[in-house]
């Protein structure tokens, strides 16, 4: 493992399996009456969130607290950023107080890499712009492996707003590295050019993507990042790309359906699918804590001596 977790591309296959196996052990801590272990006692973790986030921030904070780290949330809306301070200055000021790790969520791609260059603290990327969201991909893989016992050889369909999705990019890197057969699907206007070079099948037909899939992963339509019209209307989008029971019937009978959240019900996913028997969406949230505990623990140890 390197000093920081910025991209899935920084991880070897062995690193990925180590994180998943460690998460397996970490999950047990959450099932205890006393959900706390002393592992990161005396470590300080700063959660620096420049974008709204409920799930990821809460998940990191619970993970940190279960490992006994001291945590501190910097809410950007009430911080000096509003007074004009730059990202690097904010980070250097936080670092002057000697935290051990900084978890950063930022609307600009590469924000974590920038901090990594100027900070001695370990940096964990909790989502940077349209680039990557590595811990989400790790928890997705953890959830898939929990159900399917493997990742290699599975057909995994990822459907939705491909263009704006950092979850997609991290998932493609991770799932292809572990040997999955990844299909991505969305309206042509929301397919990033050149995405096939990442080793995935690209289609605009949901039926083709979902056919015999072991896993169907839906991505949110990110209205807040859309400048311009990418599809005629939400209603039409749902008609063409929304995941319904009828569409899902083409998948394998033991398919699982995933969504990184927050969901737009009736836009990318029908409510009866989101709440249905194949859905593991809330399990993903639960697994997120265990996976983040694993990442925090493994990074706290320091990089391997080269």
């Amino acid at each position, binding site marked *: 493992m390197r000093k920081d977790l910025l991209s899935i591309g920084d991880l070897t296959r062995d690193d990925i399996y180590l994180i998943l196996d460690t998460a397996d052990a970490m999950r047990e801590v959450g099932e*205890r009456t006393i959900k706390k272990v002393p592992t*990161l006692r*005396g470590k300080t973790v700063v959660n620096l969130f420049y974008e709204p986030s409920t799930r990821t921030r809460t998940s990191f904070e619970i993970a940190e607290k279960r490992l006994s780290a001291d945590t501190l949330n910097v809410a950007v809306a009430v911080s000096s950023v509003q007074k004009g301070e730059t990202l690097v200055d904010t980070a250097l000021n936080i670092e002057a107080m000697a935290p051990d790790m900084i978890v950063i969520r930022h609307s600009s791609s590469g924000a974590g890499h920038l901090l990594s260059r100027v900070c001695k603290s370990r940096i964990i990327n909790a989502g940077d712009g349209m680039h990557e969201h590595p811990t989400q991909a790790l928890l997705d893989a953890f959830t898939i492996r929990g159900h399917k016992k493997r990742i290699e050889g599975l057909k995994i369909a990822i459907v939705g707003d491909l263009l704006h999705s950092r979850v997609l990019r991290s998932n493609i890197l991770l799932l292809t590295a572990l040997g999955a057969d990844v299909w991505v699907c969305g309206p042509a206007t929301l397919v990033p050019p050149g995405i096939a070079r990442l080793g995935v099948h690209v289609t605009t037909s949901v039926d083709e993507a979902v056919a015999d899939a072991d896993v169907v992963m839906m991505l949110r339509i990110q209205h807040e990042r859309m400048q311009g019209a990418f599809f005629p209307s939400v209603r039409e989008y749902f008609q063409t790309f929304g995941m319904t029971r009828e569409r899902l019937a083409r998948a394998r009978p033991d398919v699982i359906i995933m969504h990184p959240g927050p969901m737009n019900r009736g836009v990318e996913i029908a409510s009866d699918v989101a709440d249905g028997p194949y859905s593991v969406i809330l399990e993903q949230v639960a697994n997120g804590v265990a996976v983040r505990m694993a990442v925090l623990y493994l990074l*706290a140890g*320091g990089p391997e*001596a080269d």
Partner: protein
Amino acid sequence: MPILMDADRIGRTLTRIAHEILERNRGVDELALVGIRTRGVTIAKRLAAAILEINHHEVPTGALDITMYRDDLMRHAVGPQPLIRKTEIPFSIDDKRILLVDDVLYTGRTIRAALDALIDFGRPRAIQLVVLVDRGHRELPIKADYVGKNVPTSPSQSVQVHLTEIDGRDEVEIRES
């Protein structure tokens, strides 16, 4: 490479300890075994089997990984973190008499970590310590209740326990390291 215990000796020793456990606790009421990963778990399972044979009662058996409680975590500047494995204690330890099982008792630091870990799971009535080999050199005030074999060692030596389930053979050996 001197052999301290062979397969026969290990088998008889575990049978003897099983009898001692039953004698001292006047039966199996409220008893539970918790082995410390890795080889403590194997020994705990064998003790459970021995008690079943003597007494026809199944004693619940769990596995404890103490890595998250180690006192040397985060103290090395570089190097990967020790591997964490699963703790599996599928029963409540509240008001139980817990038999904590490990292969070798040395500094006592592993047992200290295990006691802290166990207390996080509940409040047992008592915790008793079972070890196959006590090699001395304690750094903490910890003493075993059941000892397979006391072995005088020097700190430069290492005591290796091999068990069939993991290592393909039953043997305890002492090495110069």
